[in-house]
């Protein structure tokens, strides 16, 4: 190697302590074993590494890029049993997907997003990402660049997919949090405003509808907000595969490279503290990304490039490193287009400036490609070429900056065994709290910050752009009710107005169940996502899943034990529901020091996002009651499962059983309901989640402006339940309340099977013209009569009141 332009760092012969200090000074986030492996590698080469080389290795080996926790061995103790997990990701998520073997999964876990078939010609690419640490520091910019990043993931999936839907799920501290906060952290309401504005501005400016999502409030997120952003893209099936060939040119397109966003990947692999580098925060440029999108899709149609990926964390280093992982790459940094001329070589190589993509272009197509991008006012630069020598060689004005073996870079990461423990939840009976009247409890539940109307947020997003949002996020006669999921008909992208196939995306998230047992939380999340998409008319047997784990530090054996429980729950849910995982992401180290200097971890959080086709968008249904005198059927059995429920939270009660999913029975119910919806026999359907039957019935009522009469004695239930409260507020999973016209009742029931695994279904009441929620208890007396208008007021005023 010739003399490097960068300073050469001395690491050979240094003690682990010195190396740790060096790593901290440069924000490298490398542990002792990794330092030792690097030392050994360069000792073999008989030279010191350059700064750019160390930065490249640190980025490539970061938790963000290599998911070390999920892929390293873990010694796991559960109760009295101890076993070794070789690779948590392979043994849970990947194993489940392999077990369910779905031929319509076109690309799983390989590309920037998961890809499933959508009809015979098209495919859907789906990815959800988090942008938690940047959003904690600068909510607007962090959320904006998060959206930009996940849109680029979909753009860089296969040979490029056209984004047709954005989703957003947030976890924040409560917006009216009154307690103290450490210096430098934002109040949750400020984080919320900034994040919503960032998602809004980026999605709206790019012309992508933002139509699905949710928000969860819990004060343990006050220092570490979670911002999940997702994108669905559509691409022709021929464009799903991509392959880099030696000799292809490395072409960077889009924004220029600047000093912004250095150390994003390593930054996300450490605990958030006051000394976070300011350069990790950026402001997105949606118009630039829109230019890249338009030009890229045009170039894809003309087949002008053979592979593409986005510049995310790690910038050129990870994008070119990934594309050339199987062959090798030769890069000349002097050809990169820069924002400022004084950038050092390692800064150009590692910068995470936004809106950039890297293409592999056969030399004969270069001129045509440059013309396509120039027509959109989008800059291109040829940075070098892919080689076949298996080395990553980067030079800057003829001086070598990086000269690394790809094998060492991508396979040389030492695996450190971690320990994890799970002691299991103490089986406890519900205890504490004060009883409340049913009507008071219902009003409190419906106005609870985790149930109340999200209209303040949703109305800021353009959910109509592209003209394909068939079922909208806000539903009902006044377009303000809480829909289960949106339904998108992507005709603007396919150009086919005769094909009425659409798709839907739904989510499941509930960290309160995870506080009791993350295993059951995972099953409940999958169940919630699937029943939400079933409610609008999607086919649950064609659902594919994404996992997003957000956890505190995996160095803590208890946290890691809980994470393993959740991953095992995902595995069993995917197998049980026969729904494969197609992609996912984890964000760890979500903990920081609170105002008293004590570590505040977030509750272990799992977001399940599900995508499924809707066979005919004209038959999709919304959740509002459609008229008086219709029968109400409840699918699914109600058990005494109030552990982690909203009702317990309202009473201040602890303990109890968390909801336990029976996937086989649940899936049977979902499939039966789907068949009935497809036959046009369902007027409305709504899932029972937070607040149980009481909240679901109230929401359906005030959204459609019809009342209902419910008889709790008719509910399919555990016969040991003798409490009206339990029946009204239990959060047993897999339950859906369905409205059916009287003339269709017998035909509707014929769709529900018989046998041990069949889901129970019973008529529990009917809709009424008078807008009142009336409930008859187990003893036959009326136990509740609530005007829906008042319930709706309580539901609508919470968020605006909390935000001022």
């Amino acid at each position, binding site marked *: 190697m010739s003399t490097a332009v960068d300073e050469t760092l001395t690491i050979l012969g240094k003690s682990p302590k010195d190396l740790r200090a060096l790593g901290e000074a440069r924000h490298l986030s490398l542990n002792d074993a990794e330092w030792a492996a690097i030392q050994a590698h360069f000792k073999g080469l008989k030279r010191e590494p350059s700064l750019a080389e160390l930065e490249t290795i640190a980025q490539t080996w970061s938790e963000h890029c290599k998911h070390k926790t999920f892929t390293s061995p873990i010694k796991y103790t559960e109760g009295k049993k101890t076993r070794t997990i070789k690779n948590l990701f392979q043994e849970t998520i990947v194993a489940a997907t392999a077990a369910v073997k779905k031929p319509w999964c076109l690309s799983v876990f390989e590309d920037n997003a998961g890809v499933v078939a959508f009809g015979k010609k098209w495919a859907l690419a789906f990815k959800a990402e988090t942008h938690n640490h940047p959003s904690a520091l*600068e909510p607007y*910019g962090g959320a904006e660049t998060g959206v930009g990043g996940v849109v680029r993931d979909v753009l860089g999936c296969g040979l490029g997919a056209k984004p047709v839907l954005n989703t957003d799920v947030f976890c924040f501290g409560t917006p009216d949090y009154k307690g103290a906060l450490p210096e430098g952290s934002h109040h949750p309401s*400020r984080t919320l405003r900034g994040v919503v504005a960032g998602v809004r501005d980026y999605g709206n400016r790019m012309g992508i509808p933002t139509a699905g999502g949710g928000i969860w409030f819990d004060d343990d997120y006050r220092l570490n907000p979670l911002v999940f952003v997702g994108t669905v893209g559509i691409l022709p099936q021929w464009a799903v595969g991509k392959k880099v060939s030696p000799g292809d040119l490395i072409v960077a397109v889009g924004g220029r490279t*600047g000093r912004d966003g250095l150390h994003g990947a390593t930054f996300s692999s450490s605990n958030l503290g006051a000394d976070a580098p300011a350069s990790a925060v*950026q*402001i997105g*440029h949606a*118009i*630039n990304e829109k230019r890249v999108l338009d030009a890229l899709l045009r170039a894809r149609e003309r087949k002008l490039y053979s592979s593409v990926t986005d510049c995310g964390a790690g910038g050129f280093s990870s994008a070119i490193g990934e594309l050339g992982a199987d062959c090798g790459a030769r890069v000349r940094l002097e050809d990169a287009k820069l924002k400022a001329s004084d950038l050092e070589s390692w800064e150009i190589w590692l910068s995470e400036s936004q809106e950039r993509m890297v293409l592999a272009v056969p030399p004969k197509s270069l001129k045509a490609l440059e013309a396509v991008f120039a027509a959109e006012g989008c800059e291109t630069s040829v940075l070098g070429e892919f080689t076949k020598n298996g080395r990553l060689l980067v030079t800057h004005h003829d001086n070598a900056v990086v000269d690394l073996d790809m094998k060492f870079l991508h396979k040389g990461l030492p695996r450190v065994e971690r320990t994890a423990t799970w002691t299991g939840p103490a089986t406890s009976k519900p205890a504490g709290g004060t009883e409340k009247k049913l009507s008071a409890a219902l009003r409190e539940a419906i106005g609870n910050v985790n149930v109340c109307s999200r209209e303040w947020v949703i109305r800021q997003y353009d959910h109509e752009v592209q003209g394909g949002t068939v079922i909208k996020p806000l539903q009902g006669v006044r377009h303000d009710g809480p829909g289960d999921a949106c339904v998108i008909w992507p005709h603007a992208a396919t150009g086919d107005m005769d094909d009425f196939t659409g798709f839907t995306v739904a989510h499941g998230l509930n960290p309160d169940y995870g506080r009791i047992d993350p295993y059951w939380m995972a099953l409940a999340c999958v169940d919630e996502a699937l029943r939400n998409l079933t409610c609008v008319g999607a086919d649950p047997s064609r659902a594919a899943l994404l996992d997003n784990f957000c956890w505190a530090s995996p160095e803590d054996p208890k946290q890691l034990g809980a994470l393993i429980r959740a991953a095992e729950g995902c595995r069993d849910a995917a197998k049980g529901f026969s729904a494969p995982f197609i992609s996912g992401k984890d964000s760890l180290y979500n903990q920081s020091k609170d105002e008293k200097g004590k570590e505040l971890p977030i509750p272990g959080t799992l977001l399940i996002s599900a995508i499924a086709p809707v066979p005919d968008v004209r038959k999709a249904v919304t959740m509002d009651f459609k008229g008086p005198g219709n029968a109400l059927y409840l699918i699914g059995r109600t058990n005494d499962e109030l552990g982690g429920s909203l009702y317990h939270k309202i009473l201040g009660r602890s303990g109890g059983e968390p909801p336990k999913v029976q996937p086989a029975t649940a899936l049977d119910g979902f499939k039966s309901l789907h068949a009935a919806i497809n036959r046009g026999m369902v007027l409305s359907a709504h899932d029972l989640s937070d607040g149980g039957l009481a909240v679901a019935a109230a929401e359906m009522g005030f959204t459609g402006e019809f009342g209902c009469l419910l008889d709790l004695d008719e509910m399919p239930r555990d016969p040991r339940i003798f409490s009206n409260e339990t029946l009204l507020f239990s959060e047993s999973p897999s339950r859906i309340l369905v409205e059916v016209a009287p003339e269709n009742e017998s035909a509707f029931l014929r769709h529900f099977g018989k046998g041990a695994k069949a889901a129970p279904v019973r008529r529990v009441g009917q809709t009424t013209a008078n807008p009142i929620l009336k409930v008859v208890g187990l003893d036959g007396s009326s136990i509740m009569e609530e005007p829906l208008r008042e319930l709706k007021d309580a539901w609508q005023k919470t968020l605006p009141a909390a935000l*001022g």
Partner: protein
Amino acid sequence: MTVRVQPSNTHLVEIRLRPEHADAEGAAALTLLRAQGLTSLIETRVSRLYEIKGSLSANQVLQATKDLLCDAVTQEHRVVTPSPAPMNGANFWRVEVWLKPTVTDPVGETVRDAIADMGLPKPESVRCALVYRLVGRANKAALEKAVSKTLANPLIHRAVVSEAHP
């Protein structure tokens, strides 16, 4: 709209809503500031400030302002020097929130390209800021603290608080 010509080819252009239009952005900012304890503030209006650097004449900047930056229906379109008249003894404050020079300014970049697309000389740079004009009593230190907790994030913004007396 206010155009101030600065030395060395730096032009400052301010665009604001006509006073007869309700300013929702301003009202939201007022709520946030009042929640920080500045309850004596009675009105906030927001305008946009563009710093255009480059070899453009005052007339060319005016043309860009009229045709590109200002909506003639809802926004002010007259060249004035800033001279707010005293109002009933209340205080006036002006808060400018700029992105720090190291942070990308996407709106500024788009304006720079759009000016060139109009056939005018391409500016060297355009940076933009939000300007909050506040009416009401406050002291500077309290206002600066409230601004850093609501309207500006010190990590990426530079906020300039000044008394807006003539």
